[in-house]
């Protein structure tokens, strides 16, 4: 009774699909969220009659054979790292990365997390921190008497002390790029961590070759396209229904056997 199991693999796959899509829709307003897509692959095949085997003594061969597939499996859930649109916030500490790269954040555990969510704030000590109060790597504190903070496209953090004319450099925001962005591990709160699949980060100055540039006063929106998510959702629901119909049909065919006199 392969059809029953095949229908079940189909339903499971579509359920995963709906979960991924609903997470995308739930995060459509999350800053710098990258949408996910579930990718499916066909499962194993059984060769009941192998193509290419001899079908007679004179050497004629079976042209196609009988191959029965055993369903579908979820191969991966990708993050699609397409640039999200940027929206103006007019907040000096809201930063968006245009192009490749991630901000580096010092986690309390000592590890480095990576994020494209550049909604930063000042901590009581004048440090540039995330919503959770985690420091952006490599920046000095900004004194309380600083009048304005300018962060230029190459990531230099400059401020001006009230009454002075010269700009003071508080440090350099460096961004990290990875051979395989999609392999980063999402730990929630918009943070990602390095894995064996992502490869080691290359840290560099924004604006140099291969790195994006920094936009001050903007935030990157999520790259979720609601219209395409909804159409995907509808298609996933239909696929789910059809696979459940497979199970109903196999069940009815089985029950005709048990009803036999």
């Amino acid at each position, binding site marked *: 009774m392969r059809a029953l199991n095949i229908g079940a693999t189909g339903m499971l796959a579509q359920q995963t699909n709906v979960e991924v899509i609903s997470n995308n829709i739930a995060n459509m307003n999350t800053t710098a969220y990258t949408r996910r897509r579930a990718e499916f692959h066909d499962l194993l095949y059984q060769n009941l009659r192998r193509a290419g085997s001899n079908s007679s003594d004179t050497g004629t061969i079976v042209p196609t054979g009988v191959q029965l597939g*055993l369903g579908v499996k979820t191969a991966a859930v990708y993050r699609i790292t397409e640039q999200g649109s940027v929206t103006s916030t007019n907040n000096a500490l809201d930063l968006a990365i245009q192009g490749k790269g991630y901000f580096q954040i010092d986690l309390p555990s000592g590890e480095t997390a990576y994020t494209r969510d550049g909604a930063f704030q000042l901590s009581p000590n004048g440090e540039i921190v995330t919503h959770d109060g985690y420091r952006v790597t490599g920046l000095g504190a900004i004194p309380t008497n600083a009048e304005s903070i300018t962060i230029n496209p190459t990531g230099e953090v400059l401020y001006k002390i009230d009454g002075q004319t010269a700009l003071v450099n508080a440090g350099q925001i460096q961004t990290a790029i990875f051979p395989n962005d999609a*392999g980063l591990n999402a730990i929630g709160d918009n943070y990602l961590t390095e894995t064996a*699949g992502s490869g080691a980060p290359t840290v560099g100055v924004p604006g140099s070759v291969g790195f994006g540039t920094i936009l001050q006063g903007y935030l990157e929106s999520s790259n979720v396209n609601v219209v395409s998510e909804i159409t995907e959702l509808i298609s996933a629901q239909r696929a789910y229904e059809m696979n459940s119909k497979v199970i109903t049909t196999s069940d009815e065919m089985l029950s005709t056997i048990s009803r036999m006199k």
Partner: protein
Amino acid sequence: MENTSYIALSRQTALWRQLDVVSNNLANMNTNGYQAEQTLFSEYLMNTRDSHFRLPEKLAYTQDAGTYRDLTAGPLEHTGNPLDLAINGEGYFEVEDGAGPAYTRGGRFTLDAEGKVVTADGRPLMTDAGTPLVIAPNEGEVTISATGTVSTENGPVGKLRLVSFEDEQKLRRIGGGLFDSGDQQANPITEPRIEQGMIEKSNVNPVVEMTRMIQVQRSYEAANKLIESENDRQLNAYAVLSGTK
């Protein structure tokens, strides 16, 4: 005497197989690059006691002789992912599958930790030089031309190997969207047409598969009916012959 039931049974067995194929198509209706599978039925002739007569009588059983792939291209969908590739027209991408090359039309590729362009299972995509396609970490803009030339901001880095086969039906599925060449020669396509940022969806037509499934179910019930009425006929015959009726 029992032939009627056996013929009906051979039909039912074949119908179960067909249901397996239909349900596999439905399960894979959202699998990128999947090509629907169809069944072929043929009759299997059996000699009977009367086959030596001039007008021989033969019994025709049902046999599912083969399955074949529907080779029509699936619809292309825009994804915006630069490493999603769709083949517009014939051809297969070549990937390295440990023991040797495997072929696929599922064009969702990604980078691995070493910068190799790989499938979701980590199998590297091959270039026409017979080496995996590698993108350096500082190369962000990957452009793949229609003919398969891969370039980044640092210039061209390789050309994808796209192949065709004399008989595509001889390719064997090995799961994971991959095919084995089945001892066939892979011929490089000189003028491939690749669409970057698009993906070929599965070519399963759900409406057709659903109607096929209903048809399978009804045919199965009809065969069942045949077995039951044959059973009734035999019971009746025994009753008449034994004089109980």
